[in-house]
């Protein structure tokens, strides 16, 4: 990924120098393995801090909300779809953005790597082409990156950005024949009671730290429903019903908007797979409205418009 990093630095330097953008949003190399930190730079001299590898799994679109400058931003497939959603929802203007597209072959699931080395401490993780070399105090292990992808990346169908001003490299081939909704289907086959148990167990470790909500570029409301106090919709303790209410409504607010970027899962400190909620909505959006979020600036999202032939079987 040295090539990408060099190219990104070159583009960012040029854009900042010629005044196309005032700020540039990218990543810098993290202080711990498999964690990179989003960074905003203003000065062309700082471009050497920019970095790109397979650990850039957050969603940079998150950092666009309520900004007013001209912004250069890196965007993978899912990130660019979120930027499109931001534009459609009037959260940012297209003219404000210079989108630097990154053809993406997926991000590494840091939990899977840690699991694969038996939970031992990882001291370094270096990417070399298609491989990730992980070192600890008493072990060294080489992984094929495609075998340790984040679960959302493994089933990604939009690896190339949809809306760009410039690409850092040629587009990569899209994955064929992925079955993105297999796990959703297996839950759909359960009895209601079993489904409830499945989801209750899924979120039982939740700390209510709201990292999933805050990492999500869709969650930009000035006041979230969990923070509203008149009326108070949901209690603040870690009571299981309150936690379920939070996860349910958080997911529901992403209906028809989620691009399955996986940022929510990536940031969870206790490893909850909350995509189980949003994926069901994505599946419904696709099956009922033939809609995948953020693919075009031309069309309004399905929950935004009325069409006489909308799905309405549920209405008596």
């Amino acid at each position, binding site marked *: 990924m040295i090539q990408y990093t060099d190219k990104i630095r070159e583009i960012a330097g040029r854009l900042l120098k010629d005044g196309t953008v005032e700020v540039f949003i990218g990543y810098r190399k993290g202080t711990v393995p498999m964690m990179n930190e989003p960074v905003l730079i203003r000065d062309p001299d700082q471009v050497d801090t920019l970095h790109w590898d397979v650990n850039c799994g957050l969603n940079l679109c998150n950092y666009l909300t309520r900004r007013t400058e001209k912004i250069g931003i890196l965007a993978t497939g899912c990130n660019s779809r979120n930027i499109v959603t931001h534009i459609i929802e009037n959260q940012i203007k297209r003219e404000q953005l210079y989108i630097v597209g990154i053809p993406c072959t997926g991000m590494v699931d840091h939990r899977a790597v840690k699991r694969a080395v038996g939970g031992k401490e990882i001291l370094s993780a270096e990417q070399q082409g298609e491989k990730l070399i992980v070192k600890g105090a008493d072990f060294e292990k080489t992984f094929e990156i495609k075998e340790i992808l984040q679960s959302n990346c493994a089933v990604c169908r939009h690896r190339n950005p949809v809306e760009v001003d410039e690409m850092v490299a040629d587009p990569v081939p899209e994955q064929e024949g992925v079955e993105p909704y297999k796990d*959703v289907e297996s*839950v*759909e086959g*359960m009895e*209601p*009671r*079993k*489904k*409830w*148990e*499945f*989801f209750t167990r899924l979120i039982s470790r939740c700390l209510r730290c709201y990292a999933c909500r805050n990492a999500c570029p869709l969650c930009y409301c000035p006041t979230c429903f969990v923070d509203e106090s008149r009326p108070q919709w949901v*209690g603040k*303790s*870690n*009571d*299981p*019903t*309150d936690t*379920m*209410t939070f996860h*349910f409504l958080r*997911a*529901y607010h992403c*209906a028809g908007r989620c691009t399955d970027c996986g940022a929510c899962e990536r940031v969870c400190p206790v490893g909850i797979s909350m995509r189980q*909620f949003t994926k*069901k*909505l994505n599946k*419904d959006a696709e099956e009922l409205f033939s809609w995948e979020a953020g693919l075009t600036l031309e069309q309004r999202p399905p929950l935004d418009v009325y069409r006489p032939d909308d799905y309405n079987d*549920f*209405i*008596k």
Partner: protein
Amino acid sequence: MKNLLEHIGIEPGRLHFSWISSAEATKFVDVANQVYEAVKEVGPAQVFIKRLAEVA
């Protein structure tokens, strides 16, 4: 909404939507009966009810 609620394990018979014009009193009664029967069929709600917080 209904689909996601059902997905997390709320029984399909609990949530109903309908369109009834203000002139359709008979339809209202029909649907009311359907809703009643459906809810009665699934029985008392067991899950997703907030009581006192189950905490330490």
